[in-house]
């Protein structure tokens, strides 16, 4: 039976300390589930697991994060103290950091109204994901998503407050004449965008 480490309502470093204890007290191959209810604690436990090469998978169930951890054959804990993993705030990340690139104000090709609605759904869902993108790059008509008065601007703002960089193509902002209407985002140029898109980071295009 899977051992449950209930860390709901506990702040960092407590979930990490309890995770360490449980790993030490469990047998190799055993699976334990650590349940936390805030993204920062969850990320701090993930950082610890990744640093120690411990296999895990993350499942989100509403506000709860369930980390299913497979106890390794050997556990040589690195020298970092639990507190060192505790940051007061940071967006969730995994070893697979990614950038979202938005190339228009619609998601997919076909029906324009449908595409616009789908993209809104996508952007309004992103802030609730446990794994946030490192950056969202908008070009062509996607820069309009950051305009004042759009619900997507509020979602982009929320993501920005969570540490996600919002980058807008300067040429596109100029083309649409919306510079004064932007509520979020850093205006950038094609050199920067090209460098980002050709770097080794994962690029997600919805």
């Amino acid at each position, binding site marked *: 039976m899977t051992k449950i480490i209930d860390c709901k309502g506990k702040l960092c470093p407590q979930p990490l300390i309890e995770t360490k204890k449980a790993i030490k007290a469990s047998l190799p191959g055993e699976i334990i589930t650590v349940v936390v209810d805030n993204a920062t604690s969850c990320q701090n436990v993930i950082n610890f697991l990744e640093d120690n090469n411990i296999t895990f998978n993350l499942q989100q169930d509403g506000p709860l994060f369930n980390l299913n951890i497979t106890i390794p054959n050997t556990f040589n804990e690195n020298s970092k103290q639990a507190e060192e993993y505790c940051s007061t705030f940071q967006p969730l990340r995994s070893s697979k950091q990614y950038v979202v690139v938005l190339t228009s104000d619609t998601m997919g090709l076909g029906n324009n109204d*449908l595409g616009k609605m789908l993209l809104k759904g996508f952007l309004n869902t992103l802030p609730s994901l446990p794994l946030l993108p490192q950056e969202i790059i908008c070009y062509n008509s996607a820069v309009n998503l950051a305009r004042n008065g759009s619900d997507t601007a509020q979602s982009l703002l929320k993501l920005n407050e969570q540490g996600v960089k919002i980058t807008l193509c300067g040429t596109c902002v100029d083309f649409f004449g919306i510079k004064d209407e932007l509520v979020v985002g850093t205006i950038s140029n094609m050199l920067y965008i090209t460098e980002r898109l050709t770097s080794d980071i994962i690029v997600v295009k919805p």
Partner: protein
Amino acid sequence: MSGDKSIFLFASTRMVILAEKRAIALKIPYQIIPIPKEFSSECGMCIERDSSNIKIFSSDLYKFNIIHKIVKEKNDE
């Protein structure tokens, strides 16, 4: 948006698009979001807005024959 939220569910995606157009026309703040799992296990979109003045929006939707159902979700703040 914060505080109590209401979810407007619709019979079809086309109805959601029409309802969104009404929200824009009425200058009502809203968000298009996927239908929360507790209301439907199927893929679909709905409109989420704060619970103030939902009657105004609702009666406008009925005026345009946009059939909908209002469900509430808990305060997330």
